[in-house]
């Protein structure tokens, strides 16, 4: 189990616990805790509804081409933008701090 801190779109902080042995990704963890993340494409890096900003300096794997492509089309993208569905929960991510990007369906 690792702990992840998430700031939602209203600025409220949540501390989520997630298992590292179920090949779960951040998007799935958000949904499991009923945070308002749609996960429209089911985790294929094709919709950006799980976009988030990484606030802590944990050693994340780099973005894949698919993730780069989607972020090139998404809105509200910053240097530290990631797609939650592309970040797998592993022990090294204990204490990760994340902020949800704005809901682009509200643009």
């Amino acid at each position, binding site marked *: 189990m690792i702990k992840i801190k998430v700031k939602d779109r209203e600025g409220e902080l949540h501390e989520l616990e997630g298992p590292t042995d179920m090949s779960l990704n951040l998007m799935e963890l958000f949904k499991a805790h009923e945070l308002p993340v*749609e996960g*429209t*494409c*089911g985790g*294929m890096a*094709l*919709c950006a509804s799980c976009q988030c900003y990484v606030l802590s300096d944990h050693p994340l794997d780099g973005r894949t081409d698919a993730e780069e*492509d989607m972020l*090139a*089309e998404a*809105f*509200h*993208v910053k240097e530290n933008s990631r797609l939650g569905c592309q970040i797998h929960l592993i022990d090294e991510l204990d204490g990760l701090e994340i902020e949800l990007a*704005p809901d*682009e*369906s509200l*643009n």
Partner: protein
Amino acid sequence: MIQTDVLIIGAGPVGLFTVFEAGLLNLRCHLIDSLPYPGGQCAEIYPKKPIFDIPAYPEILAGDLVENLLEQIEPFQPSYTLGERAQTLKKDEEGFFTITTHEGTKHRSRVVIIAGGLGSFEPRKPPIPELPQFEDRGVDYFVRDPEKYRGKKVVISGGGDSALDWTIHLADIARELTLIHRRNEFRGALDSVSKVRDLAEIGRIQLITPAEVIGLNGATSLNELKIKTETSGLKLEADYFIPLFGLLPKLGPIGDWGLEIEKNAIKVNNALDYSTNIQGIYAVGDVNTYPGKLKLILSGFHEATLALQSAYEVINPGKKHVMKYTTVNGITGFDGSKKEAKKVEPVAI
């Protein structure tokens, strides 16, 4: 007025399979979808992605799954209203539903099956505060008639295939054409990318990257864009601004039909028949919710099958349908086609 036995909202995989199950019960179907082609998310979002959890297919591309479903339902001759979003629903005294699309096409049926997935696909809109006030006054999310832009100053933004394709197409039509993209790289097809770069090189179009449109100006209609580049800001005269960032599904008008909604999905009776709180309306696939719901294509197929058994009794009151296996009876299409097992002469051992 289009009349049918079963109106299906949503022509994704589950909506398409609903036609098959209805056909087995001798019920005719008409499908409505906001996309201009059948397939739903499988066609729009991930046609080239493999799916691994369709029974009996170790691996199948989403686009091929749609092709197969279309072939499977062909004997049951479904009809379609495509490129139109189901907008309003009315129930009359006879118990029939009338569904009108945003284009005004009317449909009437005794049973409605909502297989709307995550909703109807709508353009993804960039976060520009003035965008809503210039919609249809210079801001277009689709190119419907390229001639509209003849002799005009046009700005396209986006970096995918549709932005590139329309840039190439409109380069010869517009008086001035500018393509703006947030990154220096484009993610569209390679030969489109090189065509766009060639057009920029010979001065036919203007390419501004990396940059973003951040504001719009104009008295009654659009005449100027505010653009932010890495180092500064600039203003650009424009008659039309066409942001092309793909599509995003939204539940949309279905949410206003008096159906019980929970977590952006339609609540159904999963113990029985996936019926909604309105008699005669069922919801199947990703659009519905119930305890333990899984948004899987395979679950949608099952839900549609049970919903149709119940719908049969709504359409044929007092009659009970007896389920027969297709291996026993084969399939008789509405087009007169018949599919059944070949008769094999018994062989003496």
